[in-house]
């Protein structure tokens, strides 16, 4: 186990190293920091002097070393537009995105487990066919189209829900502001998180269904039936537990994917999160902010994947860790 842990840790570091190299290459080639600093009305000599002072004429390795050192100390540069440290800007936007992911996760868990279990234990009922049919339609609709459809229906036609922004926020601990504290906030977060959930929901229903059907065929479930245990207890206590193992692995990886899809939902709903900020930064060619986003998101991906792998190793006693490492 320990060897596996160490190997997994080194792999994570190697990936972060590659991400930092790519980020640095982008920073090196995208935009001109001098122009952002002094404008265009400065003579060539002063320019060269400034370049020397800023270390822009140093070798690639030296510059990368400085970049990596600063990044490790939490300094990812200063945003051209916000005139603030890029990391601070991103951390300010992070709660909005995380709340969106959290809301979507709640919806996914709340719907996919009952629906997945139901479609597995009643494979031939009409409701199952409807659910499976809807799930393949759900897979085929891009998330931004679901979002637009919902806006058109609930905001434009029925005027029931607001179509953009976060609404009233409740502040927690001075830093975190949450949507889950007020009715207005809940109304604002409902559509974006439902749209975000819609992309993963069919996948999870199908996954839980197929795993559940496989488990229900196994010997121990048949034995439990023979013993006379109530079917409800067999389904939700005995079978479901063993179904959730693959669900955890897939789920963990999907958290990373969801961060990508937040860019789409945030754009449609003008949700003031990281994804929306990233696209604005791209339009403004705000290089430090782009690079900081890249590193933060890469970090989120690497951390979730590593944790998922470790949990999988811990939860599943049959996995051969020695061979995997």
């Amino acid at each position, binding site marked *: 186990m320990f060897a596996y842990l160490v190997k997994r840790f080194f*792999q994570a570091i190697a*990936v972060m190293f590659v991400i930092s190299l790519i980020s640095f290459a*982008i920073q090196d*080639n*995208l*935009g001109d920091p001098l122009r952002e600093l002094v404008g265009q009305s400065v003579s060539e000599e002063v320019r060269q002097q400034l370049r020397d002072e800023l270390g822009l004429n140093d070798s690639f390795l030296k510059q990368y070393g400085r970049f990596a050192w600063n990044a490790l100390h939490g300094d990812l540069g200063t945003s051209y537009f916000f005139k603030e440290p890029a990391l601070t800007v991103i951390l300010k936007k992070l709660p909005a995105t995380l709340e969106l992911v959290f809301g979507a996760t709640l919806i996914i868990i709340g719907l996919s487990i009952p629906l997945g279990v139901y479609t597995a234990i009643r494979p031939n009922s009409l409701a199952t066919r409807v659910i499976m049919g809807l799930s*393949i*339609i759900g*897979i*085929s*609709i*891009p*998330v*931004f*189209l679901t979002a*637009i*459809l919902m*806006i*058109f229906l609930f905001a*434009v036609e029925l005027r029931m829900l607001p179509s953009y922004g976060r609404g009233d926020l409740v502040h927690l601990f001075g830093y975190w502001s949450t949507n889950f504290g007020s009715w207005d906030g809940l109304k604002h977060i409902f559509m974006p998180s439902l749209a975000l959930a819609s992309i993963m929901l069919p996948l999870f229903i199908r996954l839980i269904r197929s795993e559940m059907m496989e488990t229900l065929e196994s010997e121990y479930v048949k034995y439990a039936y023979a013993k006379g245990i109530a079917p409800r207890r067999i389904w939700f206590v005995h079978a479901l537990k063993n179904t959730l193992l693959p669900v955890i692995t897939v789920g963990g*990886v999907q958290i*990373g*994917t969801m*961060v*990508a*899809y937040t*860019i*789409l939902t945030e*754009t*449609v709903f003008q949700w003031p999160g990281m994804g929306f900020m*990233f*696209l604005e930064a*791209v339009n403004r*060619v705000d*290089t430090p902010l*782009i690079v900081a986003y*890249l590193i933060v*998101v890469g970090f989120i*991906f*690497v951390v979730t*994947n590593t944790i998922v792998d470790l949990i999988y190793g811990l939860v599943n006693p049959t996995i051969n860790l020695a061979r995997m490492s």
Partner: protein
Amino acid sequence: MNSIAMDAPLTRWQRFKKSNLVYDFRRNPVAIVSFTIFLVIVLASVFAGLIAPFDPYDPRQLDIMNSELPPVWQSGGDDLFLFGTDAQGRDLWSAILYGTRISLIIGICAVALQAFIGISIGLVAGYVGGRTDNLLMRIADVQLSFSTLMVAIIFLAVSQAMFGTETFNKYALFMLVAVIGIAEWPQYARTVRATVLAEKKKEYVDAARVLGFGPLRIMLRHILPNSISPIFVISTVQVANAIISEASLSFLGLGMPVSQPSLGSLISSGFDYIFSGSWWITAIPGIILVVLVLVINLLGDWLRDVLNPKLYKG
């Protein structure tokens, strides 16, 4: 082939007609309907130049006075424009025909690129084994752990900022194919590698080696045909995913430009007008996109049930 026992050797086409695949297809209404719709969409987009009443790429045919006309069946619609017009006065029906073509081209080319890279790497990893295999599969794991959409968004956003919108728009099609193609190769590589590992031990491979065939020939002519059915199944799902990815990227403004719209960019250009009631600019391309992806997914599901390949799980 020895054909003494048969009256006449069957041609490839005749053998295909007798296969399980065709037998099952004829008895599956969902498959028939999906395939028909898919064929209609493909043909309509291939012959877009003949069907479309206008050329959506020709700015001289645009008249701003015609902008935001509703479809024919609504009051205020014009007989000239079947599905109405967009905000620039472009005929939506023509734009959709050409847009579907772009979406299909990108989807199919991107998957062809994925398949080429993935199959080559999968074959090499499985056949050579050892350290090469280890390294390639580790890279595949890392690549898979990053969502395709994320990689594509960042790559396209950075290149757009770097080259400027004008240059970017010129090469948008190639960039989309390249980025979607490169990001998803591990799907193929893993499956092909799994089949290669299973097939490599069989006697016919030994026999081929004894006959003195080189590794390249053995890989391509002997082992690869055995992994055709999983490749087939993956490909259908991947085409559907690639079309969705392309639409999403174009929606974000990181794909096809408005002057040469795909279905995604059409939806995106209509989104700005949805609040003023011009729902058709978004809704009609949206419906076409969903129907296209849906029939491909249904065909993929059907293929998976019929061919029942051992797909790599995980």
